[in-house]
């Protein structure tokens, strides 16, 4: 179901002028699990993160938390994320739409150096939102466009900052 939710976000991003998007399935990445952190880095994923100005994390909520594999993959990079925009899309079969997984992910993303946006997208009742082919049949209460407006603004602003504003330059 998270894959369907991610496809909705990708389709909205495809409508944005000047935005290049890539959908990455963490389950398909060749990242080893007998180690953790940057020593388990996958060069292709790292390159994608280095090139990106922003990241949208689509996270299913299980027992109020995020999947361990998602955390494991995120932990494999660090400088690639710093001062880049991130937004979180929560997915759950209940009424809260992944609100708890979003709250749990925010401190992790902050520690990784991301700058979080204040809009979220919540796919609640996800089992009834899509038909059997994965087509969204209920788009109520999905603030995808507001979320992307904020994310893209943040991505553009942070890119300018990363490339032009020296840290401590005003000290």
């Amino acid at each position, binding site marked *: 179901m998270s894959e369907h939710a991610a496809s909705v976000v990708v389709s909205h991003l495809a409508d944005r002028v000047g935005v290049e998007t890539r959908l990455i399935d963490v389950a398909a990445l060749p990242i080893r699990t007998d180690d953790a952190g940057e020593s388990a880095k996958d060069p292709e994923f790292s390159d994608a993160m280095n090139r990106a100005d922003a990241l949208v994390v689509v996270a299913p909520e299980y027992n109020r938390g995020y999947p361990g594999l998602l955390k494991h993959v995120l932990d494999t990079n660090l*400088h690639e994320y*710093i001062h880049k925009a991130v937004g979180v899309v929560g997915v759950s079969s209940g009424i809260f739409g992944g609100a708890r997984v979003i709250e749990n992910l925010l401190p992790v993303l902050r520690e990784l150096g991301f700058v979080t946006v204040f809009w979220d997208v919540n796919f609640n009742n996800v089992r009834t939102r899509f038909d059997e082919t994965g087509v969204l049949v209920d788009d109520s209460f999905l603030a995808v466009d507001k979320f992307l407006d904020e994310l893209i603004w943040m991505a553009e602003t942070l890119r300018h900052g990363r490339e032009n*504003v020296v840290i401590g330059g005003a000290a």
Partner: protein
Amino acid sequence: MTETMRCPRCGAEMNHQANKLVEPLTAQEVEASAVLGGILLAVFACPQCGYVASTRDEPDDDR
């Protein structure tokens, strides 16, 4: 702390955009991390191609 870096991808001078406290990885870094509780990672971004790179604070650097 290193404050200048050339982009390994395109050769342009990169912008020093962040200092991030990270966990020490070696015994030397553990010893050097006593002051701040970690090692500083200096993060740079290239204004030409956007590439991001970093250097770890050398334990012998002045703080």
